[in-house]
């Protein structure tokens, strides 16, 4: 029997996400998928399962969830206040959610997208080869109170593991390679782009993140009259008012605004996760540098399992402390405790 996770209260922007839906660009459908794919690898490391399994992505705030069986969960991405039956639980860690217990996930305290992973993954129906909602394309819809999500079979029981917090929620430097229209911008304009302090505009979403700054807008030579051309995630288009717009996984497949550069894949979660007002700078690097950085990153996310450590638990904060058999087994000073009981 597989378990079901029921949503009793949902924040405004909860969706099912996975690695997205590649292969349909020619038909006008972008890959989409989790805004912060690194979080998928973190959840997978915490639960010891593949990163391709579907999760719940929570923008800004979470919701309230119950399961009809004991299930394992992991919480990653933007830190949110979370509790089980009122007892606070640690973010970036895995936990047991007992059957019927109420998991409450509140607002984010740093970053934008939080993720709720479950052992076995969310086993909703696939559409065009993936479970990810792609709202701008009309695939899927936001999760709502009353939704009951089927879960996949979970092969493990292990919980109580954590990962160190990553710095990608804090803004900072985002590295960019030249794009097909970079040379439409003068060297001076590109330099100004690199030395300008930007902040994430509050209207950012899964399609794109507008960057605010003080001072003049940016512009390409020859203005805006370029032919509509393919878009890849990370492309930074300069819109009519001169504001850079970093295009994310759920953007359109083509666009006619000039692009000053492309954010390298490993730094795109840094753009996605920046909270409104978080400071970001852009830095051009060469294609060779980008390939080196990206190769390293791919090794790092695959090795996340090696960074997982047991949660250090403060006995004063353990739920139901009295239910634990803290002294069980301490009955003899001479028995070998490692010998199996008969």
């Amino acid at each position: 029997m597989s378990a079901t996770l029921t949503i009793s209260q949902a924040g405004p922007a909860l969706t099912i996400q996975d690695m997205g839906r590649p292969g349909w660009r020619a038909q006008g459908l972008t890959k989409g998928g989790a805004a912060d794919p690194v979080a998928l690898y973190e959840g997978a490391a915490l639960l010891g399962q593949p990163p391709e399994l579907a999760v719940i992505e929570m923008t800004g705030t979470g919701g309230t969830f119950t399961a009809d069986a004991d299930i394992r969960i992991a919480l990653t991405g933007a830190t949110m206040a979370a509790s089980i039956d009122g007892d606070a639980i640690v973010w970036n860690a895995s936990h047991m959610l007992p059957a019927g217990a109420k998991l409450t996930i509140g607002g984010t305290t740093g970053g934008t997208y939080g993720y709720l992973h479950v052992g076995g993954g969310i086993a909703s129906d696939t559409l065009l080869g993936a479970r990810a909602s792609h709202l701008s394309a009309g695939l899927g819809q936001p999760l709502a109170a009353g939704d009951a999500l089927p879960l996949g079979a979970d092969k493990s029981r292990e919980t109580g593991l954590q990962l160190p917090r990553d710095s990608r929620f804090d803004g900072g430097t985002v590295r960019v390679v030249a794009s097909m229209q970079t040379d439409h911008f003068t060297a001076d304009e590109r330099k100004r782009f690199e030395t300008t302090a930007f902040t994430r505009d509050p209207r950012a979403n899964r399609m794109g993140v507008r960057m605010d700054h003080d001072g003049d807008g940016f512009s390409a030579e020859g203005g805006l009259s370029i032919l509509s051309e393919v878009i890849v995630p990370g492309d930074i288009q300069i819109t009519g008012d001169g504001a850079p717009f970093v295009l994310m996984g759920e953007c359109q497949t083509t666009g006619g605004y000039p692009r000053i550069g492309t954010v390298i894949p490993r730094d795109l979660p840094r753009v996605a996760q920046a909270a409104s007002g978080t400071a970001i700078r852009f830095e051009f690097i060469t294609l060779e540098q980008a390939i080196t950085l990206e190769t390293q990153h791919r090794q790092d996310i695959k090795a996340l399992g090696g960074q997982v450590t047991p949660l250090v638990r403060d006995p004063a904060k353990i739920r139901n402390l009295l239910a634990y058999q803290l002294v069980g087994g301490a009955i003899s000073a001479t028995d070998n405790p490692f010998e199996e009981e008969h």
Partner: protein
Amino acid sequence: MTDFPLIQTVGLSGVLVRFADTMSEPANRAALSFRAAVDAADWPEVTETSTSLVSTFLQIDLVAASVDTLLDRLHDLLATRDWYTSDLPTGRRLWHVPTVYGTDLAPQLEEAAELAGLDPDAAIAQLSQARVRVLTIGFAPGQPYMGELPQNWDIPRQQGLTKSVPAGALIVAIRQLIIFTNASPTGWRHIGQTAFKTFRPRSDTPFALSPGDELCFPSISRAEYDKITATDETGQGGAETEVLA
């Protein structure tokens, strides 16, 4: 002067082969046929291909692939023929998509007609007899950019955006037509309304149209349109289709 075809990397996501920097029929033909040739070559690094109006995009993981080897192969393939005079893809179809021109369903017909130098009736006559080709699919799932209309339809986008036109809207600018996949804001003018669904995610053929397909938009009355929308469950919107030789 830029020499075309031009090969460029696109982020770390792939390589773009551009055949021109403005829309032209031969360059569109080149992009479509070059894509078909790349698909036929079946290079293992190429995970996906697509075309824009006058370019072909090859999705390639530039982190893992040898970029130099790929560029050599692309140059070799480009040198095999004159892509600008290629045949169009095979298996193309001709679609007749019933369309209500003007009325409250498509309120910018008169304004667009005036820009095209026609009175509304003459505009409807010209548009409903025009045959256009899918130049590219993009922006939204299954959404076709079709052209080219006669020269008098080289009308600019409007300065401001229309807040929203509905799915199935037929809109016009720069000698091209689009059927909208989803309700969306646009700078193009809304001249007709169809009941044709370009994207049918739960169907066996989720994307109705392919680049190279040709379309006509015969004029129907509001009553005929209402009858189609009341009965159509397929998304065809009353469209008929035939295979082009």
